[in-house]
């Protein structure tokens, strides 16, 4: 149920350098939250930073009413957030946006993530497993440390995951796009879901489209309201589109069909 909640921080730790996992109790937001949706978090109580920060649902436990987020510290907002201690509260709004379209049960799914863009794919993976899909994941990580975090998480979910690191310290040496081209032809793929850097998602979309595989991408754009009211998070999906999509409301997940 969408709400603004004071969410109690149950656990908060730096799982790799600058990468944090935070679990909060937010039963209203958790109930009905779907993979691919996000929450809008207020970092700190003063006017600077002012706006909420969008963070994807990394994992949700609807029974416990808990939400887990995975985030990289990149600026002031995430830096402030990283200082919140267990037992404190954070101001959270959500769930927001249009999540991933779930496939029919039993299908073969490939998840392709880049960096912290892997976050929404984890919750998606959990839900896909629950509906008996065959889920495989390929992802790129900036460091061995980061990769270890993602790998562990996929393992916990019982998902076969292929890492790619630029230095080859874990898995494929190179980008996840290189990995994709190497591995994908050998496996059955009914649908692709991807989230990560723009360039990566573009390459994944190209691959999927050229192989007639349906797929979805999760986009990012600077946001103010998060609900479609301010029209700030505009994105022209294809150059020939007349109108701008609103990433917060029409997305953040979009069908690859809508993309250039």
């Amino acid at each position: 149920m969408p709400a603004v909640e004071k969410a109690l921080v149950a656990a908060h730790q730096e799982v790799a350098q600058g990468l944090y996992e935070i679990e909060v109790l937010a039963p209203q937001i958790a109930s009905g939250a779907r993979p691919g949706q996000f929450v809008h978090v207020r970092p700190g109580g003063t006017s600077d930073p002012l706006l909420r920060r969008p963070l994807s649902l990394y994992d949700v436990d609807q029974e416990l009413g808990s939400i887990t987020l995975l985030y990289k510290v990149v600026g002031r907002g995430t830096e402030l957030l990283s200082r919140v201690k267990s037992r404190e509260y954070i101001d959270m709004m959500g769930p927001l946006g249009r999540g991933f379209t779930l496939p029919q049960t039993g299908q073969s799914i490939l998840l392709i993530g880049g960096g912290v863009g892997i976050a929404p794919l984890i919750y998606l993976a959990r839900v896909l497993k629950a509906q008996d899909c065959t889920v495989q994941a390929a992802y790129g990580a900036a460091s061995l440390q980061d990769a270890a975090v993602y790998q562990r998480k996929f393992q916990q979910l019982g998902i076969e995951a292929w890492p790619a690191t630029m230095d080859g310290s874990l898995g494929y040496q190179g980008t996840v796009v290189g990995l994709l081209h190497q591995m994908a032809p050998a496996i059955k793929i009914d649908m692709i879901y991807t989230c990560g850097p723009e360039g990566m998602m573009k390459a994944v979309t190209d691959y999927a489209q050229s192989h007639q595989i349906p797929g979805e991408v999760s986009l990012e754009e600077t946001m103010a309201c998060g609900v479609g009211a301010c029209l700030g998070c505009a994105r022209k999906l294809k150059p020939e589109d007349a109108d701008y999509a609103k990433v917060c409301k029409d997305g953040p997940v979009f069908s690859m069909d809508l993309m250039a």
Partner: protein
Amino acid sequence: MHKDAAISKPGPDISVNLGGLWMKNPVAAASGTFGYGFEYQDYIDSASIGAVIVKGTTLEKRVGNPPPRICETAAGMLNAIGLENPGVEVFVTEYLPRLRQHGVTVVANIAGNTVEDYEHTAAIIDKQSGVAAIELNISCPNVKQGGLQFGTDPAMVEAVVAAVKARTSLPVIPKLSPNVTDIVTIARAAQRGGADALAMINTLLGMAIDIKTRRPVLGNVFGGLSGPAIKPVALRMIYQVYREVDLPILGGGGIVNTADALEFIMAGATAVSIGTGLFVNPTLPAELSLGIKQYLTEHGLDKIGDLVGAAHRF
């Protein structure tokens, strides 16, 4: 919040009459920050808000500016949405009926690039039921005057207000641009044009530069600055206008809590508007109404009117 449960506690009267616009409480959602009143429906009931000033509407549809359209600044944000809206026809046929049915106090906000644009848009809205007032966004370039903003020139302000007044019997509330040397002159011009109330302030013109790309952050280069950063400028202008011009004022610019709202009321605002503050806290309208009521109770005041302009009486 269910409407049949909307039973008010007795106590100070916080309803206001803003130049003919009756508001059940003195808080309005600012144009462009609350969409058409439904976007936030999971978080707050639009019917509970004093007035919902809907997204700026133009005669024809506009697709808006290329992104990035927003960027955060110290205690504020810049926006350059570019008046994206589906045009007045879609507004009156698709959005207005739903708002009406839901019992929302709707203020239409209209914009244009010629006096005729404003006139036609106002005339279309005037024919509808369910609109309580018209707010005029005059921070738009007048294409017939070389792109000079309507709101920066007293003669153009007077002309556009008078033209709209002639087309509607609804209260007309011009929204003043703060990007002027002398806000009082502009307010007087609006009054001469027949304004029923004044809304102030719109955003301050600003910009930001991305030092990585060495380019302006916004697709439109310039954008409007809103949020707490501009509050001191807003208060000053409202204080100046209250002293010199006898029109009720809808005051806003940077309000994020009850104390801010009280400052605006004491400076001379009959009612307040919140924009950027809604992004931070979607339940702010309810909090403000409650907070203002509480303040009045604690200070033994019967009605909000007793506080309007209080900072001038010392």
